[in-house]
């Protein structure tokens, strides 16, 4: 029994994101060489710059605006952007600038949690399946194939339907989508790494499995996991915000980029700014994440330099 039609997911895509095979990267390329290559990579630098600015703005939210994100002001509803309200106000007279900055904290932290949770579980499953193989590996990978048989957003929605709305449940739902992605990529890389001569040598000498995994396999697949994580961070943010937009993520009145866009969608023709500004922040965050992911792949993967 082999779910052949999901096998090629390795070289193709889920909704929104590529699943590409990881190449085993020689840790021998010195850091300063990598750094020099990174500094010459313009889109990588642009990505780092954009994401640093966004995180700085969001982190410094209380310093940049004295208005609370939930503060209602019945006398100042639907004000268009001005010096007093940089991004305007919504139906409750709440300041959109403040809501976007404070709301970004939820979106960004949630997407970090998603790549952390999904990444750790997926990596663990991938390493176990790839290193030990056998029946356990087979069962794990067939389960991964099964998860990959659902389009990503559908899987997240099904999970959200079971778990119910809320930020924590949203994080878990999106993490579930990332687990098979990490597992499949890591499994492939682990199988490849296990056959490296020095790792085979370590096995022969009698080094324990977990020690080999920790000291030899992980360092080999680390760069690949970093690339995967940076690329999927943006997609995680998109899906967290999508759940927020659909009313399945963060619940009102808490501001989150997706939920602010949802607020704004109701009166989009009256007050475009409510939905517009959080979307710009979200898009820049995702673009930057994609730039960094692509850039790191170029820098870290020696097999791609010739292209």
């Amino acid at each position, binding site marked *: 029994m082999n779910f052949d039609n999901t096998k090629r997911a390795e070289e193709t895509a889920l909704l929104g994101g590529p699943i590409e095979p990881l190449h085993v990267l020689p840790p021998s390329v010195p850091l300063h060489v990598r750094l020099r290559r990174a500094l010459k990579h313009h889109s990588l630098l642009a990505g780092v710059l954009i994401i640093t600015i966004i995180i700085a703005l969001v982190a410094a939210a209380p310093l940049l605006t004295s208005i609370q994100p939930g503060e209602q002001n019945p006398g100042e509803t639907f004000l268009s952007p001005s010096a007093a309200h940089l991004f305007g106000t919504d139906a409750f007279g709440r300041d959109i600038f403040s809501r976007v900055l404070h709301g970004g904290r939820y979106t960004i932290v949630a997407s970090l949690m998603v790549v952390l949770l999904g990444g750790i579980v997926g990596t663990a499953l991938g390493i176990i399946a790839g290193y030990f193989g056998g029946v356990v590996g087979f069962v794990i990978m067939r389960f991964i194939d*099964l998860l990959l048989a659902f389009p990503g957003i559908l899987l997240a929605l099904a999970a959200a339907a079971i778990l119910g709305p809320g930020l924590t449940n949203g994080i878990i739902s999106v993490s579930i989508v990332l687990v098979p992605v990490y597992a499949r990529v890591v499994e492939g890389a682990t199988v490849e790494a296990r056959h490296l001569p020095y790792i085979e040598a370590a096995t022969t000498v009698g080094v324990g499995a977990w020690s080999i995994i920790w000291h030899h396999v992980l360092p080999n697949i680390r760069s690949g996991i970093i690339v995967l994580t940076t690329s999927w961070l943006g997609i995680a943010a998109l899906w967290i915000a999508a759940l927020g937009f659909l009313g399945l993520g963060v619940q009102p009145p808490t501001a989150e980029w997706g939920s602010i866009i949802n607020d704004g969608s109701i009166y989009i*023709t009256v007050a475009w700014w409510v939905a517009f500004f959080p979307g710009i922040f979200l898009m820049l965050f995702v673009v930057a994440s994609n730039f960094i992911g692509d850039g790191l792949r170029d820098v870290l993967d020696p097999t791609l330099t010739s292209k």
Partner: protein
Amino acid sequence: MIIYVMKRLGGLVALLFAISVLVFMIIRLIPGDPALVILGTSGGDPATVARLRQQMGLDQPVVMQYLRWIGGVLTGDFGYSYGQQRSVLSLISANIVPTIQLTIAALILTLLFGVTIGVIAAVRRGTPFDTISMGFAITSMSIPSFWLGLVLIIVFAVLLPVFDVLGGPGIKGLVLPAVTLAMVETGFTARFVRSSVVEAERQKHVTVARAKGIPTRDVLFRHILRNATLPVLTVVGLQVGSLVAGTVIVETVFSRQGIGRLLVDAILGKDYLTVQAIVLLIAALYSVINFVVDMLYPVLDPRAARW
């Protein structure tokens, strides 16, 4: 050849079975009595609960419950939506046509623009066209579709009222949702097509063809694009599933009737039988399409025929 087809078919059946088990579990994973879960917010008197419990075979082992459920599904009986007061099947059939139209329209746009941009970018590698179109591709992959839909509504409802924005029945009402839905996949297709074409171009026979003096255009169409078709075909298969799943968001933004919006409303309204049916339907469709793509592979590329 028959063995090859049978093997693949066996894989598909196994996968569909696994999907159905997972989807069957949706209602069982929600804490509480499955009958009460299905009745949901609509409550129901003890007599209804008892009847439903009997119908679902809740007094029997889970395996029997599954068989009862899957037997119904295979004969088109997805259960009764107590929230909507009608059968789930009639709900789906009332909503499926607009979703199919939207998906096909978006698929056409995706292929038209994604393939064209990808091929030109690959052929003119390193030119400003390449840089700009790949910049566009990464940006379009990063745009939240729910936000893009709203921006298009602002632009075309307020500034340039050309298209019917909300739920127009004809072609005019389809344009904006289709563009929104196609955007992410277009960027992804363009990138994928570009790398497939670059890959195909690097083959030795292409160099030979060029050395022989075959005109550039013939080399492109006969030797490069033909080889680049296969990986692209795989991606297209996956994209149909992603597009259908993407209608969840697009139909919500444009308040369009369809399966996607039905799913969101069902999740929010805790109408779990409808959720179950739609998730099953989309996942099954996704798997079947990938299977069809698999079957097309050897037809298009004799080298892939392993029978």
